[in-house]
């Protein structure tokens, strides 16, 4: 709820500004699947390492139109996240500054809905860096993949909890596991899951 209020407020402020188009309601049939790799799962202290995004148009994952940004290594790159993402400081030595990255993200996403797995985390991460610089966070409609999945399979799983783990979903949907834990790889996998859920038959449980 908090996010919605913020979006309303910021829309009023920026509707007529240079980024006004971001606040217009989206009319097209595209969705952007987005994923950030970060140094921590706590938004407050996390830094962004890389951002991957891909457009979905209808039942087509437009991997030819994609975003694959590596950022300059943050000071907080620690052992823990290195283990998860296998990104070391040296891998990021050729990365771009966060300002450049944000500009590219806004440009790529526009006012399209943003899709992700636990998408609020990614949006909050981006917002954390956007607000001090632009005065607003991402106003886009957010599509949570695990909700889409849950809505479809809940009818089939009477009484039980739905297993919403990433790997489980990919498995149930019988999708190939692309490289995990790269921002772009995850973004594409989520995009495939989405297309599969939207257009395919409900998965068997």
């Amino acid at each position, binding site marked *: 709820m908090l996010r919605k209020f913020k979006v309303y407020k910021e829309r009023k402020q920026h509707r007529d500004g240079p980024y006004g188009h971001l606040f217009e309601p989206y009319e097209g049939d595209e969705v952007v699947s987005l994923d950030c790799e970060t140094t921590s799962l706590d938004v407050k202290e996390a830094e962004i390492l890389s951002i991957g995004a891909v457009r979905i148009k209808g*039942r*087509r*994952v*437009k*991997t*030819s139109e994609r975003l694959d940004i590596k950022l300059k290594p943050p000071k907080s790159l620690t052992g823990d996240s290195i283990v998860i993402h296998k990104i070391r400081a040296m891998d990021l030595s050729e990365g771009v500054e966060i300002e450049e990255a944000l500009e590219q993200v806004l440009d790529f996403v526009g006012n399209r809905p943003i899709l992700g797995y636990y998408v609020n985390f990614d949006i909050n991460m981006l917002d954390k860096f956007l607000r001090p610089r632009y005065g607003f966070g991402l106003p886009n409609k957010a599509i949570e993949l695990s909700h889409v999945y849950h809505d479809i399979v809940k009818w089939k799983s009477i009484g039980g909890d739905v297993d919403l783990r990433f790997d489980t979903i990919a498995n149930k949907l*019988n*999708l*190939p596991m*692309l*490289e995990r834990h*790269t921002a*772009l*790889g995850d973004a*594409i996998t989520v*995009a*495939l899951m989405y*297309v*599969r859920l939207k*257009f*395919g*038959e409900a998965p068997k449980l």
Partner: protein
Amino acid sequence: MAQEFNAENLPFSLLEPNELALLQNNLDIGYYQQGENLITAGEAPEGLFIILKGKVRESESKEGEDEHVFVHYGDEDYFGAWSALKGKAIHNFVAEEETIAHILPTKLLLELVYSNPRFGDYFSRTLAAKTEIHEQQGEEQGMAEFMLAQVDGEVMRDPLIVLEETTIKETTALMREKHADSVLVKRGGRYGIVTGTDLLNAAVLKEVPLSTPVADIASYRLITVEAGDYLFNALTLMTLQHIERVVVMDDTKLMGVIELTDVLSYFSSHSHVIGLRIQRAATIEDLSRAAHGLNDLIRSLVSHGVKARFAMDLVAAMNERVMAKLFTLLVPEDILPHVCLVVMGSEGRGEQIMKTDQDNGVIMRDGLDWPDREKVLQTFTDTLIEFGYPECPGNIMVSNPYWVQHLGDWSQRLNHWANKAEGDALMNLAIAVDAKPVAGNPALFKAARNWFLRQMHNNEVFFSHFVKASLEFDTPLTFFGGIKSKDSGIDIKKGGVFPIVHGVRTLALQHRILETNTFKRIDALIEAGALKKQQGNDLVEALSIFVQIRLQQQLLRMDNEDFNESPNLIIPDRLDRLDKDLLREALKVVKEFKKHLSMRFHLDR
């Protein structure tokens, strides 16, 4: 996005890094539900499809007909290139199950095809072109060995040296006697060379008297190589100088002569040696040693990159000579002109590579009385088994009196089988019509064959029955992509070899073609206008591919001493990517051919 798109597979491995980057930047991923068309016949396809996961069938559906499925594509297979390049699809490509596929837009495919000719060639439609590329990629090892071979005794001939005063006439006679193409003549401290062509020029064109010493017409500017030099250098030298032989020197000592033909036949030089040994064998023991050398020969031929099809010709010729020699050694001289040893089945067609089962028989002149024959022929069969030719499981061997017949009975029986037109009779007939005479009096065999061909002429009913067997087994095309069937393997004989061999056999019989070898039969059928050229060539390629793949896996099993599996079992998963591609294309050809046969002989399947 190298992580999702596997660029190690052909033809994508042919791309340069910058081209690959371009490709990967332009791929999309499409999602298709079961039954959905990825490409629709008659429409322009979006581009080249590479399956990430799923299964797609290529099929044709005409109004009022059942859908005819050509081929299935599975994970990592690609399709649609040809349609994309042509701008219009001929067949439907339908998702057999839910499918996710990379799509390379036509525009980009075209760019890559133009920028990289090898990549472009790969999409050329004919199987022949694909085979060519495959061979280039696989050839390197054999080529390297060839390049490293040295000038030594194996390829070198002893020089034929004549005295200075020897005349042209004497020299010619000597060359003829020694089967030499050239002689060396020493004048003063130098050697000169005289070739057959030199002699001809001198005697015919320049009309030099035949009593002239050859030393007068010799050429003293010898082109030489050092002993131990690379054979390749000798070849280059000959090519550069437009000559057909070079002289081998060890410092100043004359060692021998290398002929161009010797270098060129280097790959099969071992075969030459074995051939000689078979020829010279005076006893069964000698012959046995020569026969045992054949396995090594096959191995060396294949490792030198000789195509299976040619290795097959050579080995068949060798096997034939072994049998002919043995037959001649065993059968008494006075009987020999009155009997004819025939080899049948794959041996008759000259299509076995490894030593395969014996399939042989004897035709005797009518009225011949040969009381000893059972004993002699039993020895023949037993000795061949000792030589490493396994027993025929169907007992089609000369040790079985059923396959030792007088001419009249032999012919009558062919006719009887043809009229019976079922089961064993047809199988026996199929084996017998591939018969080829190898020893004794071939006229006996020819009489039987010609009589039979005349009997069968225009007997459409017989041919329709006969051809049926080639449609009996399904072409195992659905193997690719289907995970369930992946480890069971396919029977290449039933699925690929037999339909072609038997179909071609039927056509050959119908057109009274005397060849028994399937490749030669196909050539003859094209010649006779009974097969379209393209179709014939495709069949040749397809059969060569089956043979090559089968041989590869056979050799592999020999190395692993794994004798449990049938030689005809092919495990697609053990094949590399391109072989799998080729196998699939080849099976496609088989499927088309079967369709062709059933239409031609009015068989409804």
